């Protein structure tokens, strides 16, 4: 399985234990290494932003994302989640900076697997494998230089 961030946009999020709709995918919280999704940011009309830890996702299906239990949905708990929900630390739209100090465009999209690990990013300059990613912060996604 490989899904892009843009494919996942607005995908319905369903609770596996109650079958209710929890919301839809709004974005992702990616860790400081820039390679692992920690949580999925979900939104529902009339409610504040909420998050589901990646570990609680049982399936990232073509039509819906299934969460093990509705109890797994939580409000923003830490700075990383807050920065992601506010759009300050996001993979898509992030400036790409290589380790030599040269900008390499912007992230247009990102791909991830069933384990929540990024497999690559799409930038203005083309596709970059995830193993070149060094860090993701509010200023830039840093990659190894060529």
């Amino acid at each position, binding site marked *: 399985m490989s899904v892009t961030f843009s494919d996942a946009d607005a995908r319905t999020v369903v609770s596996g234990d109650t079958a209710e709709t929890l919301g839809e995918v709004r974005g992702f919280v990616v860790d*400081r290494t*820039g390679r692992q999704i920690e949580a999925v940011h979900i939104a529902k009309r009339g409610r504040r932003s909420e998050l589901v830890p990646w570990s609680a996702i049982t399936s990232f299906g073509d039509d819906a994302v299934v969460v093990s239990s509705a109890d797994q949905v939580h409000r923003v708990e830490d700075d990383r989640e807050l920065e992601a929900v506010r759009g300050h630390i996001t993979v898509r739209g992030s400036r790409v*900076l*290589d*380790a*030599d*100090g*040269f*900008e390499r465009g912007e992230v247009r999209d990102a791909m991830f697997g069933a384990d929540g690990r990024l497999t690559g990013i799409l930038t203005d300059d083309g596709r970059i494998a995830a193993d070149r990613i*060094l*860090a*993701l*912060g*509010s*200023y*830039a*996604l*840093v990659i190894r230089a060529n």
Partner: protein
Amino acid sequence: MSVSTPLRLVRAADLLGLPVVALDSGEDVAEVRDVVYHAGDRRLVGFTLNKRGTFAGRLRHVLGAGQIASIGRDAVMIEAQSIIEDRPDQADVGSDGSDVSIMGLQVMTVDGTVIGSIAGVVLETGSPATVVGYELETPDRTTIFLPIDIQVALSSDRLLVPENTAAYVHQDLVGFGGAVAQYREQTLGSTGSPDRSGGELPPPSVDGQGGVR
């Protein structure tokens, strides 16, 4: 096989305001306030820093040349964010009162011809970054570049350079890179390092600010 890689040169003044970004976090932890160069040792000391942000002031931390992972067109990279966070109370560089700025210092050949005044320094990027040249403003207000190794003597009054300096002077950084490489080839003795003796007067402890303020 001797394939020489092109030198990556940058004017120190062009680094001012560049973000300092940590490789381990992707955060811009500071920005370059000024470039500190020890003219006596012909050595890049490092960068003084400003905080990032609209109302941000100066950071006490001085980023040493050895702490810089790389200098690029768009950012100065450091290995870890903690390099700057862990040392907030470092003293200012050049606070012992014996320091003289090289900015504006007269540059004269040993036969007594003034060729200009120092307007900045030129760095070769890499790890560690080194100072390879001076940027000079000539009496007719053009900019020229001079290899650092050409220096004969330095005082707080002037920098003395050899008579034949014109051969190594360039008006653009691209040509200057070639001149530095050429000069190094010619002066590399059996020791494998550039000759830096050459009748040099004992220089005072001179610190220079590479940036234009």
